[in-house]
């Protein structure tokens, strides 16, 4: 709704509404500044290159070292494992719900799946720690993991983001016009081919968006990795090892000593800034990709 010449009262309301929308920008700027100032102090003391390329992370030890690569490797592995579980399961669930499930079943199953997304991540953390690692991985699958491993944290993280992938992809596929399916059936295509070759490609921008959101969730998830991935900040080469993620470090350190102004405090915010920039970059790139795909057709 563009122009209109509202009365004065309406103009005031409109300004208020605009203000509400603009709050989001204020929040973003706020986040940026809140992270930036302590980070600047951090980088006064620590060379940014060393920070980004160093492979020893021991910021609070006597022999301190600020190479963030171990944390990035931890985040990378938990995210990778989480997505490798969530994308296939989530997409397959979405395809079933959107293309195959009878209306009645869909109405039940979709919300049931969404419950997975709503379960507190603290609960998931203990689930990974007390159930997935000892019983599923060690006993059932015979994969030898310690109590803490990026594998168990990543898998449970994957379970948590299944509904993010499934629900949004399902929305995208359901939004594909019925006319396209009919067109395909009328050419003698069966249901599987129609799904894979017409519906799926037509929904690809929505599906990509769902995966990106799941990716951001995985990168930013804190409690699961803080509880189940371990706290040893070494570069992770083997997913059955323990490791620490960026969020895990923040959570662990912030619960303890984090007096404003201290180097530890600044370190937290430097890692926070890095985390924020990573998710932001992912989203901006994904936004461009999604738009590109959409424009093509």
């Amino acid at each position, binding site marked *: 709704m563009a122009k209109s010449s509202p009365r004065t009262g309406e103009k005031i309301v409109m300004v208020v509404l605009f203000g509400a929308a603009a709050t989001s920008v204020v929040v973003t700027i706020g986040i940026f500044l809140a992270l930036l100032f302590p980070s600047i102090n951090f980088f006064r003391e620590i060379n940014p290159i060393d920070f980004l390329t160093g492979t020893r992370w021991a910021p609070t030890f006597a022999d301190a070292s600020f190479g963030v690569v171990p944390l990035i490797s931890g985040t990378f592995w938990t995210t990778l494992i989480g997505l490798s579980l969530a994308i296939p399961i989530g997409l397959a669930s979405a395809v079933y719900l959107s293309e195959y499930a009878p209306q009645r079943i869909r109405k039940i199953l979709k919300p049931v799946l969404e419950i997975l997304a709503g379960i507190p991540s603290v609960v998931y953390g203990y689930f990974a720690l007390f159930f997935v690692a000892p019983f599923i991985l060690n006993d059932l699958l015979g994969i030898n993991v310690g109590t803490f491993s990026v594998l168990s944290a990543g898998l449970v993280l994957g379970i948590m983001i299944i509904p993010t992938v499934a629900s949004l992809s399902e929305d995208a596929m359901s939004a594909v016009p019925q006319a396209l399916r*009919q067109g395909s059936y009328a050419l003698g295509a069966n249901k599987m*081919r129609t799904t894979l070759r017409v519906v799926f490609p037509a929904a690809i921008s929505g599906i990509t968006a769902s995966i990106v959101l799941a990716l951001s969730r995985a990168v930013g998830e804190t409690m699961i990795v803080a509880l189940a991935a371990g706290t040893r900040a070494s570069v992770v080469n083997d997913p059955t090892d323990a490791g620490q993620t960026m969020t895990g470090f923040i959570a662990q350190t912030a619960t303890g000593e984090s007096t404003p102004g201290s180097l530890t405090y600044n370190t937290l915010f430097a890692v926070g800034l890095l985390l924020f920039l990573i998710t932001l970059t992912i989203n901006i790139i994904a936004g461009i990709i999604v738009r590109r795909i959409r424009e093509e057709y």
Partner: protein
Amino acid sequence: MEREIPTTPRRIMACEDVNVYYGDFRAVTSVDLTFGKNEITALIGPSGCGKSTLLRSLNRMNDMVLGARVEGSVTFHDQEIYAKEVDPIEVRRRIGMVFQKPNPFPKSIYDNIAYGPKVTGMKVSSMDDLVEEALTRAALWGEVKDKLKQSAYGLSGGQQQRLCIARTIAVNPEVILMDEPCSALDPIATSRIEDLMVELREDYSIIIVTHNMQQAARVADRTAFFTALADEGTGDRTGVLVEYDKTATIFGSPADQRTEDYISGRFG
């Protein structure tokens, strides 16, 4: 109409006592119709009289509609298409369909045509040739031959509809069903499609639903006029066949008063 039309159609498809239900609601009641080979048959009648419903039951597209159910006999080359052992996928390949709103796939023009042959597993010696031929037959080749790799969404409405016809031709059906194929198009695009239908009649049998009586008069060999009556049982309105004859007869000297009222614009 300079064309000779046999008194009885050379049957390629037929309906016998066909009733179509949506759940408990009977949308079409007891239709008998014989469709002729290499003819254009038009189905006309006021909105809601079940034309689309009947058309969809001719190639089992109704299977896709929740709650839809067909009773009676629909045959194609004298085979019952609703028989247990019949594969509906094969039915739809051989009885193609073009829809009211052009519905190209969000793919390139080329891929739109190649899609059907690929998914139906047709043995094709040269896909390029097949695409060219289908587009040529749909009178579209000249306009698109330089942009085969571009998205079909860049075409105008009329071009898109011809693309959909080309796509249907590419899987080599015998019958083409069209549900108001021109109602979303402008007059010029409409007349191109009408010309195309007349050409296609040489190789295919065409059944078209149209709201536009002039269109039926212009292109159809035979016309069936439907209307909606109160169902004797439920009182709901249900579609019935009023009259079926050569188009010239339907428009010139209809046997039924309701047909005449409709044709002359007194209702509808």
